[in-house]
């Protein structure tokens, strides 16, 4: 009695009850596919978030006001930083263009490469010849913003320092805005109105892609700082200051310089808590990846439960099979089947069920990962495939061993008497 023989008996046993075998396989199939697919979705969302953080610009630090003056918006993600000191604050100063100028001072902050003050206005109605679109975010800033925030132009050009000084009504729009207002037309050179104020489109930003379904990174427009202040936001405080460090190694030094300059200007120190916060891409990235990995683990845990349920399904069906075939087991034993052969047959039957289910599950998961799920492109993690397959086989062996043992331990005389 060799292994091939045992496998042949097992296949014959499974084929005898095709419907039942198929349904049991389905249980494992769903479990394995769920594990792989959900881990892939988690990984996909994690990668897309990482990519979006990188899109915000490398080596950049975002300074924003921690008082109410900052308003909503911001370049993307905001992270609440714990207030370490809750001491009395006599007067919280908003961020101003003067703060930005001070940060650009090479003597005080040698590691800072560029400084871009930012004001933003949310949900601004824009129109072009009857077409209208509500721009999610209109940003008023300096030309250095494009480089610091990693927003290259696909068509046309940026605006220049001259435009800022002259407060010209020029604007660079994102892909979503261009599509909604112009469709197939070339927007460059056309005039749009933003809340009634005419702006000339000078460029269209390169498509950034979705930020994982939370926010459309292409639904924005960028114009010179004074133009936006004049027409949309008023000359209030800045929403944020985007600072670009000279290189990745300079980020920490730049952060220290920004802190010292702003502490001095805002009178922070002693019992006075800082009225601004500095967002560092590196720390943001760490926090977000920690959050997404928790998310992935959670998804995988849910999927693992369905795999477990599939395994219990195997035990159940194998117990039924063993009971149903008690007489057959008795006959086999009476004509000299050793215990190992019976154990092997039922164990192989259970393992085949789970292995076939596992392989089909992998196939379906890989096929399903080709589609976008909830705005996320799943990324199949090879280790999850190996793990899910391994676990499904282990489940077959583990959950099949109880019924198989029961079959093998049956005494032939009792098994033969069984009706």
């Amino acid at each position: 009695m060799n292994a091939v023989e045992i496998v042949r008996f097992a296949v014959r046993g499974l084929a005898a009850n095709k419907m039942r075998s198929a349904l049991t396989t389905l249980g494992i199939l769903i479990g394995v596919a769920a594990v792989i697919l959900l881990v892939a979705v988690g990984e996909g969302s994690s990668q897309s978030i990482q990519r979006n953080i990188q899109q915000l610009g490398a080596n950049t630090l975002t300074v924003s006001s921690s008082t109410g003056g900052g308003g909503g918006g911001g370049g993307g993600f905001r992270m609440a930083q714990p207030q370490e000191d809750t001491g009395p604050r006599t007067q919280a100063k908003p961020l101003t263009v003067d703060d930005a100028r001070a940060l650009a001072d090479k003597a005080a902050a040698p590691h800072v490469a560029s400084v871009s003050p930012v004001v933003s206005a949310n949900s601004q109605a824009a129109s072009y010849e009857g077409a209208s679109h509500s721009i999610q975010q209109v940003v008023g800033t300096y030309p250095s913003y494009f480089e610091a925030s990693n927003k290259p132009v696909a068509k046309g050009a940026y605006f220049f320092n001259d435009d800022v000084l002259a407060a010209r009504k020029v604007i660079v729009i994102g892909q979503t805005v261009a599509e909604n207002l112009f469709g197939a037309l070339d927007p460059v050179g056309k005039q749009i109105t933003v809340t009634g104020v005419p702006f000339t489109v000078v460029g269209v930003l390169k498509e950034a892609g979705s930020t994982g379904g939370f926010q459309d990174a292409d639904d924005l427009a960028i114009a010179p700082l004074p133009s936006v202040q004049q027409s949309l936001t008023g000359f209030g405080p800045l929403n944020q200051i985007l600072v670009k460090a000279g290189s990745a190694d300079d980020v920490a030094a730049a952060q220290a310089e920004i802190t010292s300059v702003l502490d001095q200007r805002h009178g922070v120190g002693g019992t006075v808590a800082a009225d601004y916060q500095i967002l560092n891409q590196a720390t943001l990235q760490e926090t977000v990846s920690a959050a997404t990995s928790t998310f992935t683990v959670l998804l995988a845990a849910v999927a693992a439960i369905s795999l477990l349920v599939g395994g219990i399904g195997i035990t159940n069906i194998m117990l039924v099979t063993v009971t149903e075939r008690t007489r057959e087991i008795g006959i086999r034993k009476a004509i000299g089947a050793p215990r190992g052969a019976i154990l092997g047959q039922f164990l192989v039957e259970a393992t085949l069920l789970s292995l076939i289910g596992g392989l089909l599950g992998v196939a379906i998961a890989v096929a399903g990962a080709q589609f976008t799920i909830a705005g996320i492109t799943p990324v199949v993690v090879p280790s999850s495939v190996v793990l899910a397959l391994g676990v499904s086989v282990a489940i077959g062996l583990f959950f099949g061993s109880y019924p198989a043992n029961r079959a093998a331990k049956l005494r032939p005389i009792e098994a033969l008497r069984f009706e």
Partner: protein
Amino acid sequence: MSLVLDVRDATKVYGAGETAVHALRGVSLQVEPGDYVAIMGASGSGKSTLMNIIGCLDVPSAGEFHLDGVDVGALDDRRQAVVRNRKIGFVFQSFNLIPRMSAVMNVELPLAYGGVRPAERRRRALAALDLVGLADRVNHQPNELSGGQQQRVAIARALVNSPTLLLADEPTGALDSTSTLDVLGIFDRLSAAGRTIVVITHEADVAEHAKRVVRLRDGRIIEDTRLAPVDGLPPRLKEVTA
């Protein structure tokens, strides 16, 4: 000459205490090679228990049982399986073929468990089916065969390993008279060819074919009659071959 079967003072008790059932109360039975023994008795006489012990499906509560010189009770599970495979060919009242397997595959099964190579297995299985006159039914499944044919497949399966002992439990109990004659004819011819056969039955007709008839009652042997010599031919061979 070594005995095929040597049961010494075997007892079998089911249950314990006041509800204990004494199925066998000290049975001794010796069977020589080539003998054809019919064990007779009414229901409850202990003949099924005796057959289970002889067939290595059960062990006696007390007493000894040697099959072909081997003390079966002392063997472990694995070796008992080997003994059942090599030394005993079982024929059951209800045929006990495995459903959804063709006749030839049913016959091959003991060889498969015995580790015989597939080609050799097929050859021997076909030869055994030919011996019981079913050469034209090899690929039929049990549910496509009549009762008599099923029992002949079962006999082929029992013979395919050339066992020391062919053990039949009411082999004709579920058959009509024609099929009964077929089966008894096969047994008689096998006996004439020198096979050792033990048949458990409660039908006198069947027992008359044997060379020796042993009667059981209440777990004891009450009669042991020899109808023909051990090395002779079975008494009714002429009738069934006529």
